[in-house]
């Protein structure tokens, strides 16, 4: 009976850990998606000369979320399995006659060690989410757009998409986390290409613009000739786990919004007048120039 209660308690504490994990899941996903993308993005930047760029871009996409769910579960369940198993062993050593205290002690040590390992995993995962403020630098926004477009060029050509750039010359420098903003650009560009891929329209066009947006901000937009929005969809676009894609997870835009907002900007979507969708975001320009 007592044993059963203990077991129940143990299961509860385990449930607590899992609940804790589930609670931070959305944030975790966002963070990990970002981090993975960022590292891949860096890799991409470095390896661009050697590797096929569109492949990297796609890989960043695939690796970002779907497989990470499994990875996190795996990472946490390993130490949890060791904890539960060692606790079971400990109990059994103590039930020996006479109790095998030394063995029980060793098993208990392993319980502590592995519980700490599990909590370290969670701490690491949460560290991605809350710990790091954007690493803001001052940079030329249009240069970044060119970089991302170059990265996606192979896929743009493969998909037979006409890309038009309307980048305003002489824009003030932007002050934001360059790598993070690069991720958002890549994500929006990929979304646009996917929207065209699922559309039956003969037009296959993506239009990217950058311009001033009020005195202290620049505005970026990417418009596609894809499927566009159905009524009621626009309100949910940025919701976590909300998607219209067959294989989507519904976090790309959620991640994008958290990044843009963390960088002092704003992101939104509109219907494209000629069909399709437009995604826009604004970012603050360098403090010195806007003053």
């Amino acid at each position, binding site marked *: 009976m007592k044993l059963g209660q203990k077991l129940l308690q143990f299961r509860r504490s385990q449930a607590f850990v899992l609940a804790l994990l589930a609670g931070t899941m959305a944030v975790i996903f966002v963070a990990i998606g970002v981090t993975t993308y960022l590292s891949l993005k860096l890799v991409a930047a470095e390896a661009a000369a050697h590797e096929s760029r569109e492949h990297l871009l796609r890989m960043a996409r695939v690796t970002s979320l779907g497989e990470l769910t499994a990875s996190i*579960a795996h990472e946490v*369940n390993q130490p*949890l399995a*060791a904890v539960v*198993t060692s606790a079971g*062993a400990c109990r059994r050593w103590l039930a020996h006659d006479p109790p*095998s205290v030394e063995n029980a002690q060793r*098993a208990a040590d392993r319980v502590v060690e592995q519980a700490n390992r599990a909590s370290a995993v969670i701490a690491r995962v949460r560290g991605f989410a809350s710990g790091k403020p954007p690493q803001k630098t001052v940079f030329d926004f249009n240069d970044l757009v060119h970089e991302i477009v170059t990265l996606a060029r192979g896929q743009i050509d493969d998909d037979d998409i006409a890309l038009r750039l309307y980048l305003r010359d002489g824009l003030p420098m932007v002050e934001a986390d360059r790598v993070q903003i690069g991720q958002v650009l890549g994500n929006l560009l990929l979304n646009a290409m996917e929207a065209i891929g699922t559309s039956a329209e003969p037009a296959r066009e993506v239009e990217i613009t950058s311009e001033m947006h009020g005195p202290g901000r620049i505005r970026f937009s990417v418009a596609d000739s894809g499927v566009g929005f159905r009524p009621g969809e626009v309100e949910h676009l940025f919701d976590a786990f909300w998607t219209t894609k067959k294989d989507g997870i519904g976090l790309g835009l959620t991640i994008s919004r958290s990044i843009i907002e963390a960088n002092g900007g704003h992101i939104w979507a509109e219907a494209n007048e000629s069909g399709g969708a437009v995604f826009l975001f604004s970012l603050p320009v360098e403090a010195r120039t806007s003053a």
Partner: protein
Amino acid sequence: MNTPPSADEASEPIVYVVDDDRSVGASLEDLLASVSLRTRLFGSVQDFLSFELPAAPSCLVLDVRMPGQSGMDFLGHMSELGLHLPTVVITGHGDIAMGVKAMKVGAIEFLTKPFRDQDLLDAVYHGIEIDRARRAREATDAELHQRWASLSPGEQDVARLVVDGLLNKQIAADLDVSEITVKVRRASAMRKLGARTLAELIRQIDRMSSA
């Protein structure tokens, strides 16, 4: 449970644990040791395959995701390799589809980490019993074949016809020998096969021809 460690190595059950996570492996080894089960730990399928398995009743505890060959993939190829180990599949990220697949390729149990220690032990005990029964069956079959081989051709002929339901007189006519000879051969065959009754003889020969 109370088997002293000095017991016959060959008959003492052994549990193989293949998991690349050392902590999981070590805790499993400890749990199994606490119920007096001996364990061999392996970090990969490759390591396990290079180990020469003793002829003891065994059970395999196999992790799904490992560097190199995955546990699931290995399980699917085990019978091709002539391995008939009852296998308990454990995984850190299981879903229904994976469980179904594991059972389809022959796992006796599918447990997701963290599993209850009792569930694992139950599965392992069950696996050992399955393996023990298989080994016992194989040993009996081998012995039976050996006994059958010790019969003279004449005795084998008589035994076959007896099992077919022929009377001594008919057998004698069939084989063109005297009825006395049939009786002598029949008695000798029964003795050599260790069959005390006709029913036992029939069962043994049936089993041999089905094995």
